[in-house]
């Protein structure tokens, strides 16, 4: 029984030794965990951004002209956007508020035809509070690069643009390239594929895809445009969106400036892709 007493004593001494060893390392461990978790928050934010924000703000946050402002931009991080918009709080609060509550009214000095939707659950959106925080962390992580140059909206193409004359002849189009264009910086998918802001491009419910619909749309009564072929119809819908607005949709929502943003080849590729969607 004496052995038990001695071992019991040793056990308590060992226990206290472990307590001290653990205690000494605690401040470090806690700091490491905090840093690790902050990093993982950015990772979560990145994948949320890819799913929810890329269609309008672009994959690298560069924004899409006429659709959504650039986030990877110096004016967001140096205070000038907050000043222009008239926001008096901190940048994290601004970003969090915009993501969670959306933009029911356009920001001062901006003219985006689309309102940013609400994302936060407390305002009826699909994201939990921690997901909104993750997105905020991701957006704020652009600070270094944004201040070093970032990007404004996708730049206008160099060289001549296609213009608004739908009678002009276009080169042969490559549907695969057109698909890539539509999913990239132009933002087509944001309204025509991922959301129902504009007429759906792929077949949807009973409706055929936009390529099939184009064949009959320009011949239907009620058509107010000037197209004489399905390709021209789609061309007109892109560069002169208000010429004819499909029933159930609104004018002045689609950006009006694609005529000045697309080159002839880009337009041909996009039309080829759209025509392939039956």
């Amino acid at each position, binding site marked *: *029984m004496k052995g*038990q*007493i001695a*071992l*019991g*004593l040793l*056990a*308590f001494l*060992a*226990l206290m030794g*472990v*307590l001290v*060893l*653990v*205690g000494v390392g*605690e*401040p470090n*461990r*806690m700091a*490491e*965990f*905090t*840093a*690790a*978790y*902050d*990093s*993982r928050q*950015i*990772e*979560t934010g*990145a*994948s949320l951004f*890819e799913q929810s924000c890329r269609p309008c703000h672009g994959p690298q946050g560069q924004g899409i002209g006429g659709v959504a402002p650039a986030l990877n931009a110096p004016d967001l991080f140096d205070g000038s956007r907050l000043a222009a918009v008239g926001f008096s709080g901190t940048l994290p609060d601004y970003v969090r508020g915009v993501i969670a509550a959306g933009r029911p009214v356009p920001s001062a000095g901006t003219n985006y035809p689309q309102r940013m939707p609400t994302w936060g659950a407390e305002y009826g959106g699909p994201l*939990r*509070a*921690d*997901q909104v925080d993750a997105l905020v962390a*991701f957006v704020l*992580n*652009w*600070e*270094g*690069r944004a201040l070093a140059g970032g990007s404004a909206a996708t730049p206008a193409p160099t060289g001549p643009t296609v213009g608004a004359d739908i009678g002009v002849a276009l080169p042969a189009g490559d549907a695969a390239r057109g698909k890539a264009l539509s999913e990239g910086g132009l933002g087509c998918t944001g309204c025509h594929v991922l959301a129902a802001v504009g007429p759906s491009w792929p077949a949807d419910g009973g409706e055929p895809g936009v390529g099939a619909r184009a064949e009959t749309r320009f011949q239907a009564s009620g058509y107010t445009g000037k197209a004489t072929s399905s390709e021209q119809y789609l061309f007109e819908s892109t560069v002169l969106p208000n010429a004819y607005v499909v029933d159930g949709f609104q004018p002045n929502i689609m950006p009006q400036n694609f005529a000045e943003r697309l080159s002839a080849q880009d337009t041909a590729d996009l039309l080829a892709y759209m025509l392939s969607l039956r």
Partner: protein
Amino acid sequence: MAIFRLHIPMLDEVKQKGLRPALKDKWVDVVTRVTAGLSPDDMRGVLRDDTPGRPNPRLTPHAEGFWLHMKPTYYHRMVDGLYPTFRLGWLSTFFGVFEIVTGIYLMIYYTPSPLVAYENMLNLLSNVPFGQVMRDMHRLAAELMVIVVVLHMLRTFITGSYKKPRQFTWATGVVLLFVTLVLSFSGYLLPWDQLSLWAVTIGASMVEAIPPEVVGRNVNLLVRGAPEFGANGLLRFYLLHVVALPLAGIVAFGVHYYKVIHHGHSLPPEAEKVGEDTAKRVPMDSRVYFMPQILTRELWYVSGLLAILFAAAAYLYNAPALEPHANPLITPLHTTAPWYFLWLQGMLKVGDKVVWGLIVPGLLTGLLLVLPYLEVGPSRRYGDRRIGLSLAALFVAAMAMLSYMGTPHYAVSTSPDQEAVAELLPQTHPGPLRSAPWEDLAYGSFEASAWAAAPNATLQDLLREFDDVLTNVQSAGRTDVAGVMVIEDWQTDLKKVTLRVTWTNVPDGTAGEFSQSVYLHRNGNYGEGA
């Protein structure tokens, strides 16, 4: 004139005996009262292991005090050591108390709401000194307690200690087993990460299957507080875990332990005549007294266990790292139930949910409860119980096999391309890609088959592993299987890694593709295990 005269008895004693003797007598008096019968000299005698005087003062705390009123004053020499009980009942109690204490510590920093529970866990791990070790100890002891409780039940069965007159003790033991399992299950939900939510959802969905449908539906609503787990469910499970089950456990333990002491610890089967129970009639020369022998032994066990548990939790064992926040819309691939419920998962894979998920487990529990009333053979000797012992061995083997069948890798998989990607990028733990050193993930596009040409050892290992699992995608229906890993610079200290599997479908020559991306930050620290 009624004068109020102050009468202090202590001062009278001082006047009588002198200051020092009066103080000493007072001290002796206080100690004897506090210990319910042991004077300081008696206590010293206990520490010295002297022969006690007559009447034995060391029996008085048991007879007159509260704390030792159920503890026996002596044990039989044959049952005071590790054999035949291995002190598993004592160990179960120890773990129960340990869990209550560590649980109370954790309660200081936890609120059972889905809005903050996960953040509370993060806070506990990142901003509370000893927070991680407290959580790890609670988790470790919980898992050990389930094991110990089951071993205790097995031991009691093997030594036949459930037989007359101890049948009801066994029944309360089954109740305690149930309480332990549900305590473990209810606690599982509290961190509110993906593992918590989905493991418990899988377990609780059994309840929904209770026939008839109206009963199952309503019991499910009662248990979860809603059709699916959310704020109500978390709160109900929390209340179960910290109030209802501990109370039930303490009451059941009280009955259980009282009965154990009332009948006495049963002797090893070979030490008694068949059919006899002499546990309460301990001859004088076979007595091992609580004070000091058993007390010392138990304190020694406490010391050793505390040291082992703390050291193990600090250095060897880590509670599973928090997975991402619970998401009711996404079930991770290869989600698994807690290991002590894998046997149930295994049974569900055998056949119908109602039969194998409710009826069979229900029958098993019922059988356990009434076992002592059915198995009434008088002998506890091992030789006379070959059938029973073989059945027990068979039962253990069956549980083990069912548990293996319950693991996700048995008969549950999605398409091989998703499985291939999930090897590198699992959804339930970090996996090789996330744990790889961040610096070694060079930018570029790397084909799995060209793994030998990768720029560094880390990428070579990852790509070779990718290439190996891609052979599973190759099959009668798929040829030209290729895999590629693309690593891009995405943001400051953030890389985007995409794994893509492409193949050609054999019958019609169409191309198939599956890809998955993950973003990795320099400081994500997945390799460190926390």
